[in-house]
Protein backbone atom coordinates (compact mmCIF):
# COMPACT_ATOMS: atom_id res chain seq x y z
CA UNK A 1 0.00 0.00 0.00
CA UNK A 2 2.76 2.37 1.05
CA UNK A 3 4.80 1.32 -1.96
CA UNK A 4 1.85 2.01 -4.28
CA UNK A 5 1.28 5.44 -2.78
CA UNK A 6 4.99 6.25 -3.08
CA UNK A 7 4.95 5.20 -6.74
CA UNK A 8 1.89 7.31 -7.49
CA UNK A 9 3.48 10.27 -5.70
CA UNK A 10 6.75 9.86 -7.60
CA UNK A 11 4.96 9.65 -10.95
CA UNK A 12 2.98 12.76 -10.11
CA UNK A 13 6.16 14.64 -9.14
CA UNK A 14 7.90 13.52 -12.34
CA UNK A 15 5.01 14.80 -14.45
CA UNK A 16 4.99 18.11 -12.56
CA UNK A 17 8.74 18.46 -13.01
CA UNK A 18 8.50 17.78 -16.76
CA UNK A 19 5.70 20.31 -17.04
CA UNK A 20 7.72 22.96 -15.19
CA UNK A 21 10.75 22.31 -17.42
CA UNK A 22 8.59 22.66 -20.54
CA UNK A 23 7.05 25.89 -19.28
CA UNK A 24 10.49 27.25 -18.40
CA UNK A 25 11.80 26.44 -21.88
CA UNK A 26 8.76 28.04 -23.51
CA UNK A 27 9.22 31.16 -21.40
CA UNK A 28 12.93 31.35 -22.26
CA UNK A 29 12.14 31.01 -26.01
CA UNK A 30 9.42 33.66 -25.79
CA UNK A 31 11.68 36.05 -23.90
CA UNK A 32 14.59 35.47 -26.31
CA UNK A 33 12.32 36.18 -29.27
CA UNK A 34 11.02 39.30 -27.58
CA UNK A 35 14.41 40.79 -26.80
CA UNK A 36 16.42 39.69 -29.86
CA UNK A 37 15.30 42.58 -32.14
CA UNK A 38 16.33 45.06 -29.47
CA UNK A 39 19.69 43.30 -29.02
CA UNK A 40 20.27 43.45 -32.79
CA UNK A 41 19.33 47.13 -32.93
CA UNK A 42 21.67 47.92 -30.06
CA UNK A 43 24.50 45.97 -31.68
CA UNK A 44 23.97 47.83 -34.96
CA UNK A 45 24.12 51.23 -33.27
CA UNK A 46 27.23 50.14 -31.34
CA UNK A 47 28.98 49.21 -34.59
CA UNK A 48 27.96 52.49 -36.20
CA UNK A 49 29.28 54.45 -33.22
CA UNK A 50 32.62 52.62 -33.45
CA UNK A 51 33.06 53.71 -37.08
CA UNK A 52 31.82 57.32 -36.90
CA UNK A 53 34.33 60.15 -36.62
CA UNK A 54 34.30 62.00 -33.28
CA UNK A 55 32.45 64.91 -34.93
CA UNK A 56 29.86 62.64 -36.53
CA UNK A 57 29.35 60.82 -33.25
CA UNK A 58 28.76 64.07 -31.37
CA UNK A 59 26.30 65.18 -34.02
CA UNK A 60 24.51 61.82 -34.05
CA UNK A 61 24.14 61.78 -30.28
CA UNK A 62 22.79 65.31 -30.25
CA UNK A 63 20.46 65.17 -33.24
CA UNK A 64 19.89 61.60 -34.44
CA UNK A 65 21.64 62.29 -37.75
CA UNK A 66 25.17 62.95 -38.97
CA UNK A 67 26.74 64.58 -42.01
CA UNK A 68 29.12 63.02 -44.50
CA UNK A 69 31.05 64.57 -47.39
CA UNK A 70 30.78 62.90 -50.78
CA UNK A 71 34.12 61.48 -51.89
CA UNK A 72 33.94 62.90 -55.43
CA UNK A 73 31.68 65.95 -55.43
CA UNK A 74 32.41 67.28 -51.95
CA UNK A 75 28.66 67.61 -51.45
CA UNK A 76 27.27 67.31 -47.97
CA UNK A 77 24.76 64.62 -47.10
CA UNK A 78 22.69 64.11 -43.99
CA UNK A 79 22.16 60.51 -42.91
CA UNK A 80 19.23 60.26 -40.50
CA UNK A 81 18.54 57.35 -38.20
CA UNK A 82 16.55 54.84 -40.23
CA UNK A 83 16.65 52.06 -42.76
CA UNK A 84 15.21 53.71 -45.89
CA UNK A 85 14.63 57.17 -47.39
CA UNK A 86 16.92 58.58 -44.73
CA UNK A 87 19.58 60.45 -46.76
CA UNK A 88 19.38 64.08 -47.87
CA UNK A 89 21.76 66.06 -49.97
CA UNK A 90 21.91 69.42 -48.23
CA UNK A 91 23.00 72.86 -49.34
CA UNK A 92 25.33 75.26 -47.54
CA UNK A 93 22.42 76.67 -45.54
CA UNK A 94 21.55 73.18 -44.32
CA UNK A 95 18.37 72.88 -46.37
CA UNK A 96 17.51 69.61 -48.12
CA UNK A 97 18.01 69.56 -51.88
CA UNK A 98 17.41 65.94 -52.81
CA UNK A 99 16.36 62.85 -50.97
CA UNK A 100 18.36 59.71 -51.71
CA UNK A 101 17.51 56.11 -51.03
CA UNK A 102 19.97 53.24 -51.28
CA UNK A 103 20.29 50.38 -48.85
CA UNK A 104 22.10 47.06 -48.46
CA UNK A 105 20.18 44.26 -50.19
CA UNK A 106 19.72 42.27 -46.99
CA UNK A 107 17.55 42.86 -43.94
CA UNK A 108 19.79 44.85 -41.61
CA UNK A 109 19.21 46.99 -38.55
CA UNK A 110 19.33 50.79 -38.72
CA UNK A 111 22.88 51.20 -37.40
CA UNK A 112 24.25 48.82 -40.04
CA UNK A 113 22.31 50.47 -42.85
CA UNK A 114 23.53 53.93 -41.87
CA UNK A 115 27.13 52.74 -41.61
CA UNK A 116 27.01 51.14 -45.07
CA UNK A 117 25.54 54.40 -46.44
CA UNK A 118 28.24 56.48 -44.76
CA UNK A 119 31.09 54.35 -46.10
CA UNK A 120 29.57 54.28 -49.58
CA UNK A 121 29.20 58.08 -49.80
CA UNK A 122 32.61 58.76 -48.29
CA UNK A 123 34.53 56.27 -50.42
CA UNK A 124 32.51 55.63 -53.59
CA UNK A 125 30.00 58.43 -53.94
CA UNK A 126 29.52 57.86 -57.67
CA UNK A 127 28.78 54.17 -57.18
CA UNK A 128 26.26 54.97 -54.46
CA UNK A 129 24.52 57.62 -56.57
CA UNK A 130 24.25 55.24 -59.52
CA UNK A 131 22.08 52.86 -57.54
CA UNK A 132 20.32 55.48 -55.39
CA UNK A 133 16.71 56.41 -56.06
CA UNK A 134 15.87 60.06 -55.63
CA UNK A 135 12.85 61.41 -53.82
CA UNK A 136 11.61 64.91 -53.13
CA UNK A 137 12.41 65.97 -49.61
CA UNK A 138 9.30 67.29 -47.93
CA UNK A 139 9.20 69.88 -45.18
CA UNK A 140 8.23 67.14 -42.78
CA UNK A 141 11.36 65.19 -43.66
CA UNK A 142 13.53 67.27 -41.43
CA UNK A 143 10.94 67.24 -38.70
CA UNK A 144 11.59 63.49 -38.63
CA UNK A 145 14.92 64.27 -37.05
CA UNK A 146 13.16 64.63 -33.73
CA UNK A 147 11.57 61.22 -34.17
CA UNK A 148 14.94 59.76 -35.08
CA UNK A 149 16.52 61.25 -31.97
CA UNK A 150 13.82 59.65 -29.81
CA UNK A 151 14.53 56.29 -31.45
CA UNK A 152 18.27 56.64 -30.91
CA UNK A 153 17.72 57.53 -27.27
CA UNK A 154 15.50 54.48 -26.81
CA UNK A 155 18.12 52.18 -28.30
CA UNK A 156 21.30 53.73 -27.00
Amino acid sequence: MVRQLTEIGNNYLRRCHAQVVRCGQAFRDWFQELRSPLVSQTRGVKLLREWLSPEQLTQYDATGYFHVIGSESGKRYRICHGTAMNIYEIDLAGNPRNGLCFVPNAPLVAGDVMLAQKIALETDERGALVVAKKFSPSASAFANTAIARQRVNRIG
Partner: protein
Amino acid sequence: MATQIIMDRTGDTRHYFDAKDPQALLKAEERFKELTLVGFTAAVRTSPGEAALTRRFDPTAEETLFFPRLVGG
Protein backbone atom coordinates in the same frame (compact mmCIF):
# COMPACT_ATOMS: atom_id res chain seq x y z
CA MET B 1 43.80 40.27 -32.71
CA ALA B 2 42.48 41.18 -36.14
CA THR B 3 38.74 41.21 -36.75
CA GLN B 4 36.40 40.59 -39.63
CA ILE B 5 32.99 42.12 -39.01
CA ILE B 6 30.09 40.93 -41.11
CA MET B 7 26.83 42.85 -41.05
CA ASP B 8 23.79 40.61 -40.67
CA ARG B 9 20.27 40.62 -39.25
CA THR B 10 21.61 40.18 -35.69
CA GLY B 11 23.60 43.41 -36.06
CA ASP B 12 26.92 41.83 -36.91
CA THR B 13 28.99 38.71 -36.53
CA ARG B 14 32.66 39.07 -35.62
CA HIS B 15 35.50 36.71 -36.43
CA TYR B 16 38.68 37.29 -34.47
CA PHE B 17 41.97 35.84 -35.66
CA ASP B 18 45.66 36.05 -34.95
CA ALA B 19 47.26 37.70 -37.98
CA LYS B 20 50.58 36.00 -37.09
CA ASP B 21 49.07 32.53 -37.36
CA PRO B 22 49.34 31.32 -40.99
CA GLN B 23 46.40 28.91 -40.57
CA ALA B 24 44.15 31.64 -39.16
CA LEU B 25 45.27 34.03 -41.87
CA LEU B 26 44.43 31.54 -44.57
CA LYS B 27 40.98 31.01 -43.11
CA ALA B 28 40.42 34.78 -42.92
CA GLU B 29 41.48 35.15 -46.55
CA GLU B 30 39.07 32.40 -47.59
CA ARG B 31 36.27 34.14 -45.69
CA PHE B 32 37.15 37.42 -47.42
CA LYS B 33 36.98 35.77 -50.85
CA GLU B 34 33.73 33.97 -50.11
CA LEU B 35 32.02 37.13 -48.92
CA THR B 36 33.20 39.40 -51.71
CA LEU B 37 32.32 36.72 -54.25
CA VAL B 38 28.68 36.78 -53.15
CA GLY B 39 28.54 40.58 -53.37
CA PHE B 40 29.67 41.87 -50.00
CA THR B 41 31.71 45.08 -50.01
CA ALA B 42 34.80 45.08 -47.80
CA ALA B 43 36.08 48.18 -46.05
CA VAL B 44 39.01 48.65 -43.70
CA ARG B 45 39.23 51.35 -41.09
CA THR B 46 42.13 53.66 -41.87
CA SER B 47 41.69 56.11 -39.00
CA PRO B 48 38.91 57.05 -36.56
CA GLY B 49 35.84 57.74 -38.66
CA GLU B 50 37.55 56.97 -41.95
CA ALA B 51 37.37 53.85 -44.05
CA ALA B 52 38.68 52.66 -47.39
CA LEU B 53 37.13 50.10 -49.69
CA THR B 54 39.29 47.12 -50.47
CA ARG B 55 38.98 44.42 -53.09
CA ARG B 56 41.90 42.34 -51.92
CA PHE B 57 42.49 40.66 -48.61
CA ASP B 58 44.82 42.77 -46.52
CA PRO B 59 46.64 40.60 -43.95
CA THR B 60 47.74 43.69 -42.02
CA ALA B 61 44.23 45.15 -41.61
CA GLU B 62 43.16 45.30 -37.99
CA GLU B 63 39.48 45.57 -38.82
CA THR B 64 37.65 44.66 -41.99
CA LEU B 65 33.95 45.36 -42.32
CA PHE B 66 31.70 43.57 -44.79
CA PHE B 67 28.33 44.91 -45.86
CA PRO B 68 25.90 43.56 -48.47
CA ARG B 69 25.65 45.04 -51.96
CA LEU B 70 23.85 48.38 -52.09
CA VAL B 71 20.67 48.77 -54.10
CA GLY B 72 18.20 51.55 -54.72
CA GLY B 73 15.53 51.57 -52.03
